[in-house]
Every structure is written in C-alpha cells, then in structure tokens.
C-alpha cells in the first residue's frame, strides 16, 4: 500500500500537517501566556479548559520548544529530508512525554486536546510507515 504513494506527496503532506500544527500551537501559546499573566488563582481557565495553574509551567516551555521544532520539520520535509528523518523519532518521544505529563496533572479536566504535543506525537506515530518508506528511498 505504502509503495504506491508518491514520495513528494508524502513530503508535502508532512509539510502541510506540520504547518497546521504550528499555527494551532501559536494560537494555544498565546492563550496560555495570556492566562499565565492575567489569572492569579490556583485554577485557571484557558481555551475552554479548567486546569491547575502549575500545569502552565509545563504548557509554556512545551509550546516554546515544539512550535519552532514543528516549523523546522515542515521546512525540512521539503528541503532537508535527512534532517527531517533524523529529527522524527526524537520529536515523537519528546512530544509524547510532554503530552503524558500534561494529561497526568490535568486534574478533573477532560484530556488536554488543544495541545500541540498531543497532535505532534499522534501524527508522528501514524506517519511512521511513510517515514520508513522515505528512509528506504533515501538510502537506496
């Protein structure tokens, strides 16, 4: 199935996916920083979620790290395939641990879905077969 997919189509798909996640991340970090500055209680309201303030200390660096990384991946998907493939597993692991940490400490709230790390690692896991195909093509 994967062999029938065009290589450039896969790279463009990753490019657009990462661009969208990056934009969602920018929207989320703007709301999170706004909540961090304006709300002072132990519980904060951000993007429709009610979360402990201590969680903002993870959400802020999480977005600061993953947004530039995501945009770089979008650039690398089209222009620097070697870097894209080398970064891929590491971005997946970092996003996964950040996402698990946020959801562990979310309190009684529903899972944090408006979070770039959750999008990142889920789409990365789904994309593994396509990445393996790109890797084989690059090395052949």
């Amino acid at each position: 199935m994967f062999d029938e997919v065009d290589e450039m189509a896969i790279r463009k798909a990753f490019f657009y996916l990462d661009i969208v996640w990056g934009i969602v991340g920018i929207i989320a970090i703007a709301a999170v920083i706004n909540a961090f500055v304006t709300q002072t209680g132990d519980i904060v309201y951000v993007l429709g979620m009610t979360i402990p303030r201590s969680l903002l200390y993870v959400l802020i660096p999480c977005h600061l790290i993953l947004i530039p990384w995501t945009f770089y991946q979008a650039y690398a998907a089209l222009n620097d395939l070697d870097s894209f493939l080398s970064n891929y597993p590491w971005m997946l692991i970092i996003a996964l641990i950040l996402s698990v940490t946020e959801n562990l400490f979310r309190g009684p709230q529903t899972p944090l879905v408006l979070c770039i790390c959750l999008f990142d690692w889920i789409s990365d896991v789904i994309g593994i077969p396509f990445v393996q195909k790109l890797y084989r093509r690059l090395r052949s």
Partner: protein
Amino acid sequence: MFNVRVFVGELELEEWNWIGPAPKGRWSSVLPENRSPMLLMFISYFILCWWSYINVEAMQMAAPAYLFALVFTAVLYFLKTYADMGEFIDLGNPSRTWMDMALGFFVALPFSLGALIRVFIPTGAIAALTPLGFLFVALVAPFCEELFFGGSLTPVMCSYLGVIPGLILNGVIFSIFHYSVYGVQLQTALWLFILRVILSYLILWRRSLTVGIAGHTFVNFSSALLLMGGG
C-alpha cells in the same frame, strides 16, 4: 581472554582489550545526519533546564548541574564535530534508532520493576510531585545525564583506561553524583552503578547514545509515575 568485540563502523567488528587503553578516537562516533537533532535537543533541553531552575524549588541544586552538563557536552560535541578533537558518541546511526530505543527500553525494564517493588528508592522524589518537576525527572535529567556520562565520559574513560576500568569508574562517578545531588541511599546507589555500567557498555557497543537515553528515560519515567501514584 580480555578481548571484547565492538562495532567500529556500520557493521565492522573489531576486538579491543577489556582492560588496557584503546587507540584514541576509535570509540567516538559523530555522524553529520545527527547534527540537526543534536542542535535542536541542546536548545530544547537548555530551555527546559533553565525554566525548571527558576520555577522548581526542589531543582535548585540539580538544575545548575544539568545546565553545566549541557554546556560542557555541547562544547565537546562541537569540538568533535567541527575540529575532530576529543571523544564523543552522538545519537548513532539513524537507521538503527528504533532498534536502539527498543534495546534501551528492554534493558531498563528490570530496573523499572525494581523501583516498582521497592528494591531501590527512585531519585527525585520530591520534584516528581509537581508537573514541571515530573517533566524534569522524566525527560530532562535522563538526557543531560546521558550526554555527560554516556556521550562524553564513557568514550574518554574507555579510551584512556580500557573498557572495564572505564565503565567501573563511570558507574562510581554516576552513583556519587546521585548521592550528592539527590541524597540517594547506598542500596539505590548500587543499583544506579549497575544501570550505568550496562547502559555505558551498550552505548559503546552500539555506538549510539540513543540506547542510553531511551533506557534512562524509561527508568526515570516509570519511577516518577510510581512516586506520583504514591506507590
């Protein structure tokens, strides 16, 4: 009798003496493909480390040590990459990354189980109870420690001292570091020594820091989860 077979190239095996010094430079492995993830991770972990230092009270002692380790290893890495000076092992061959991660998790499993049944007490107990402290223990600490102990000290010590003395000294320094920074008990220090020796040997064998980072992350992550659950 005292020889060990290790990878020196893609699939090339060589025999080195377990005890005597090995030729300089043969333990290092710095690949151009890994420059991008190494740079991104140096920056990312520096941000996380600095942020933890200013926001987690329990990390006031550990975070500066990790910041130092990050800067120190970054200098070593760039010296090795651009001037071919010193010894360093980076993330290894990207085509073997998933296999190295799986190997790291597999090796770390007994140590995670050890933490679960309280054979040893996990480190970073106080810090892991806050979200940022948990992130520090589960993500930042393993990476910084592996860069310093696995990526820098292991190849240097094994080059100058030989494999067995290098691994033992590395394990001893690792245990002393945890004793002085986290105040672990003697029994835990012994387990940390064993973990360090095994991970360092695997890093040398696979020419990849990925094994160490994956294994160490798994141990810390499961231990922090255990502490958070009050186990």
